[in-house]
């Protein structure tokens, strides 16, 4: 076994040298002859009848090659739905707005020019006439408002999970607590916004894109343009983040692909940061109601979750999210009755889509806020209350009342580890000291124990991996996943190197290129290592077996009788016994290509963990300072701890963003109040990162050859409920309904003032 020990017991990322030297190659770095830039003229009106789009002035702008509205491009395809095709029926999403505009930022026209400056000059010159209609900005308004798609209900999808809780359970319970929570709309905010380059190559179309699911995108583009799938090649170069938001097939992609073919020139669209705030998708956006019944011993009797989710202007990208929330309503607990219901509505905000966690942060928040509310009402320690109700390790596999099969878990162990790492007793003592000192700022401690789902659902529970030996003694690992910055070149190649027993340098990692990788599902839902890593692990093992068989056969053809069992593989060499052997490269040179493909399938896995936050509140101003965060995550067996640590930290910071800072605030006229960009939309930076302790427990996944579960979304699941619970604890809020995210100073001040009065 080669030595993979890096600074923290794992390999540091081999892609980093390139990226840190500025030698990364992103879509915007691809310089091609005769390249054109596209820019979109976008609606500044949230909702209205689109009377006219005038692109004539844009066509006169120097450097502009062309400008088109929907009327000029009648053959433009509509945007394909993702997840549940039914929701798109009667709710077509045109690639360029045709008769209606449905959100601020919707593309009205496209301008193509020699560079982005001139393209923006052209987009500036586009004039639209829109007869405004009233905006519909909240899910509640969508329920009561007029139909946004005439003839179709604003509720685009609804479902229930688990059996309704019998009324007598509520009636006879010792305590019933109810919560109302709001998941605000947030911007997923990758460093690199969307980027798409379409290069016509004869009858083929070569697409370069910052994307999480290149094979699905290829199929969608091919179908939309009426091409055979193999006429389109989709390739993802270096990418600067995605967080779930680069998984769909967006209107702009279809427009640019169609124009590249029409013009016979490479056309790219590099979305900028300001544009992305309204043109790209939002995350979260749910109104939640919960109800929890407990007996006198604090045992959970029943839990109910009602989710009303905002899909935004079109249901195509967001509809998969609230279902996850409803499915995960059981949390980490042995609650006998759990019932969840979700309804998704269309509004006139920017469409929503998966954002890191994609439904699981929302579920954990609803469950864990309600659990701590119950603890406060009962006057019991929230840690004790959780311990009393956790599913026991021997309960797995566990079929939850809401329809999930949890594979494995040791929830109590993760919480114990969290309590220890926090030194909870010392913080509780400090909390008591401060409660006795009127001049001291109150301190609060909050927890979250989460269970999430990784790998995917249904048809996404598969992934492709392939390992090929080359004559020069190196190997090519091909995988259907698509790194948008997670470090797959290191971690997934490492899986192969481990099986083959060779140095990482001998593995060339190839992914996110439909021309090179036969099939793939992609990277989202914390699935790359669990699914892609397992596929590569198995493919590498199969390659070793193939090589052994071939070496035995070759030896036999040479006259020596060597049984396959007599051939051993060590560090890329086949040992035939008796001092005979052959390097695998020489075997390939002598016998031809040697490659093993594996399509891995597995049920979803359920990572879990416990988070704790300690906060201090300046009650006069409403400021929250996070003094300490502890994260204990169980990702199953971790292949590369350096990378999972990076994922955890990044995800934690995004969780801090949602709980304290981030929101896309819509004004009454339907426009997001984000004119000053990042001065209005606050994201945490290094200065806002609190001291944190990261620990792990390891509960191997029973259905995975690596024992791996997903990593990457835990932090933004665990942090928001832990922090809000801590603020509620600091303020001793019996009814924390006033504490809704983001916990701005105004929100916290009002809650504190309410608690004091």
């Amino acid at each position, binding site marked *: 076994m080669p030595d993979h020990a890096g600074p923290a017991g794992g390999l540091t990322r081999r892609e980093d040298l390139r990226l840190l030297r500025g030698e990364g190659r992103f879509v915007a770095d691809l310089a091609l002859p005769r390249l054109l830039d596209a820019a979109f003229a976008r609606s500044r009106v949230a909702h209205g009848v689109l009377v006219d789009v005038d692109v004539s002035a844009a066509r006169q702008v120097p450097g502009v090659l062309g400008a088109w509205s929907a009327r000029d491009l009648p053959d433009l395809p509509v945007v394909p739905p993702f997840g549940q095709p039914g929701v798109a029926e009667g709710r077509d999403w045109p690639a360029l707005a045709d008769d209606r505009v449905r959100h601020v930022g919707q593309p009205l026209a496209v301008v193509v020019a020699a560079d982005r400056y001139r393209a923006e000059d052209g987009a500036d010159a586009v004039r639209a006439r829109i007869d405004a209609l009233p905006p519909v900005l909240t899910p509640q308004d969508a329920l009561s408002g007029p139909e946004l798609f005439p003839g179709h209900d604003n509720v685009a999808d609804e479902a229930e999970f688990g059996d309704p809780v019998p009324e007598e359970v509520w009636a006879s319970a010792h305590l019933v607590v109810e919560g109302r929570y709001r998941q605000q709309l947030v911007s997923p905010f990758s460093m690199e916004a969307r980027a798409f380059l379409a290069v016509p190559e004869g009858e083929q179309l070569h697409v370069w894109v910052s994307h999480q699911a290149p094979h699905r995108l290829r199929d969608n583009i091919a179908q939309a343009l009426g091409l055979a799938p193999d006429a389109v090649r989709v390739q993802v170069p270096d990418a600067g983040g995605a967080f779930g938001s680069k998984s769909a097939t967006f209107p702009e992609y279809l427009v640019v692909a169609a124009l590249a073919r029409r013009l016979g020139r490479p056309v790219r669209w590099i979305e900028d940061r300001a544009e992305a705030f309204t043109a790209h998708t939002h995350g979260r956006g749910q109104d939640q109601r919960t109800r929890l019944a407990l007996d006198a011993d604090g045992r959970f009797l029943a839990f109910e979750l009602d989710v009303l989710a905002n899909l935004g202007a079109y249901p195509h990208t967001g509809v998969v999210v609230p279902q996850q929330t409803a499915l995960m309503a059981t949390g980490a607990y042995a609650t006998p009755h759990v019932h969840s219901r979700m309804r998704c509505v269309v509004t006139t905000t920017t469409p929503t889509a998966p954002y890191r966690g994609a439904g699981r942060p929302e579920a954990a928040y609803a469950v864990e806020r309600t659990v701590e509310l119950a603890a406060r009402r009962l006057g019991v320690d929230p840690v004790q209350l959780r311990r009393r109700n956790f599913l026991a390790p021997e309960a797995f596999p566990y079929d939850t009342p809401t329809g999930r099969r949890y594979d494995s878990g040791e929830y109590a162990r993760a919480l114990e580890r969290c309590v220890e790492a926090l030194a909870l007793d010392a913080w509780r003592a400090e909390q008591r000291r401060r409660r006795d000192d009127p001049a001291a700022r109150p301190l609060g401690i909050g927890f979250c124990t989460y269970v999430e789902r990784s790998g995917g659902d249904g048809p996404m529970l598969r992934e492709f991996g392939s390992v090929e030996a080359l004559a020069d003694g190196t190997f090519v690992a091909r995988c259907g996943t698509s790194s948008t910055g997670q470090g797959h070149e290191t971690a997934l190649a490492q899986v192969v190197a481990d099986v083959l027993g060779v140095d990482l340098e001998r593995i060339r990692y190839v992914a996110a290129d439909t021309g090179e990788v036969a099939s793939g599902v992609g990277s989202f839902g914390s699935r790359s290592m669990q699914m892609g890593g397992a596929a590569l692990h198995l493919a590498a093992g199969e390659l070793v077996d193939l090589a052994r068989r071939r070496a035995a056969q070759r030896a036999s053809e040479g006259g020596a009788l060597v049984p396959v069992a007599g051939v051993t593989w060590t560090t890329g060499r086949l040992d035939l016994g008796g001092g005979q052997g052959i390097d695998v490269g020489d075997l390939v040179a002598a016998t031809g290509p040697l490659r093993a493909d594996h399509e891995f399938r597995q049920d979803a896995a359920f990572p879990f963990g416990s988070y704790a936050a300690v906060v201090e509140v300046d009650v*006069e101003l409403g400021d929250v300072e996070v003094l300490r965060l502890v994260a204990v995550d169980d990702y199953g067996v971790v292949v590369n701890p350096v990378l999972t640590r990076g994922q955890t930290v990044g995800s934690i910071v995004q969780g801090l963003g949602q709980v304290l800072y981030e*929101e896309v605030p819509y004004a009454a006229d339907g426009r997001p109040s984000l004119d000053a960009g990042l001065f*209005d939309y*606050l994201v945490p*930076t290094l200065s*806002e990162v609190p001291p944190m302790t990261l620990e792990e427990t390891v509960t191997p996944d029973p259905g995975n050859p690596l024992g791996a579960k997903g990593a990457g979304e835990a932090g933004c699941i665990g942090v928001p409920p832990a922090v809000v619970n801590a603020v509620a604890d600091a303020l001793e809020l019996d009814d924390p309904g006033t504490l809704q995210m983001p916990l701005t*100073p105004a929100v916290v001040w009002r809650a504190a003032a309410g608690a004091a009065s």
Partner: protein
Amino acid sequence: MKAPPFDLVAPTSIEDAVLALAAGADRPGGVAVLAGGQSLLLDLHHRRVRPGLVVDLRRVPGLGAVDVHGSGVRIGALVRHRAFEDPALVPGAVGRVLPVMAEHVGHPPIRELGTFCGSLAWAHPTAEWALLAVTLGAQVTLRSAAGTRTVAAAEFSTGPHATVRGDAELLTAVDLPLPPPGAGAGFVEHRRTEASFAAAAALVVLEVGDVSVRACRIGLAGAADRPVRATRAEAVLTGAPVTAESFAAAARVAAHEDADPRAEPHGPVDHRRQVLSVLVRRALVAALDDTARAGGEEAA
């Protein structure tokens, strides 16, 4: 986020600079001055401004100095924010509070390039330097081809990103008067992240006698559409005993009588008044602490 087309000139003397401004003032979209570029470039890229001509000041000599004289400080048009991080730059209470305020201006790369005078000309409603200028009663010097005039800082900004400066005028310098020896200064700001603009801020310059407040200046940012003096609170506090109660009373007057804040996303009016009240009280305490430092410095 790409700038619209514009012409650029880089004059090498003040005379040429003001001639360029005069020529550019008649263009569609007017003329803009580039000094540090930390606000102008952003405005250009967002296409919030579309000047036909940009006049780059950076080759004009003589604008980069901070001159300390007996009763005041003159700050030239090209002095960067970073200069004020130096606690030895200016004597007395203002010298002690400048580094505290400078730390709140943008972040280090912005402070390396952005300018004090540029901040005044940009007129963000909660900018630290505009608050300082208004609180101290600074004079702003404007020069054009037609001549030179000075404007009181309190009269200079007329609202968010609006000033009395004409397109053909160049803001060449700001003169800050310095409070007398023995005065103390305190500055407290409320912002949501380290990189945020101030939501609100208070700057106090305090002179105390044996038992009572001899004189005070209280400046507020986030109380109106530009930094303002809290004149009613100053009147309440002047002559009042140096006590926590006096400070709290003045803070309440500042927040509820002097201030006229407007609601913003995440900033309802009642919370903004509350924040202003707390900031003024804390700034008064900080200024009082600083008078003790003033005594120490002068004794040394």
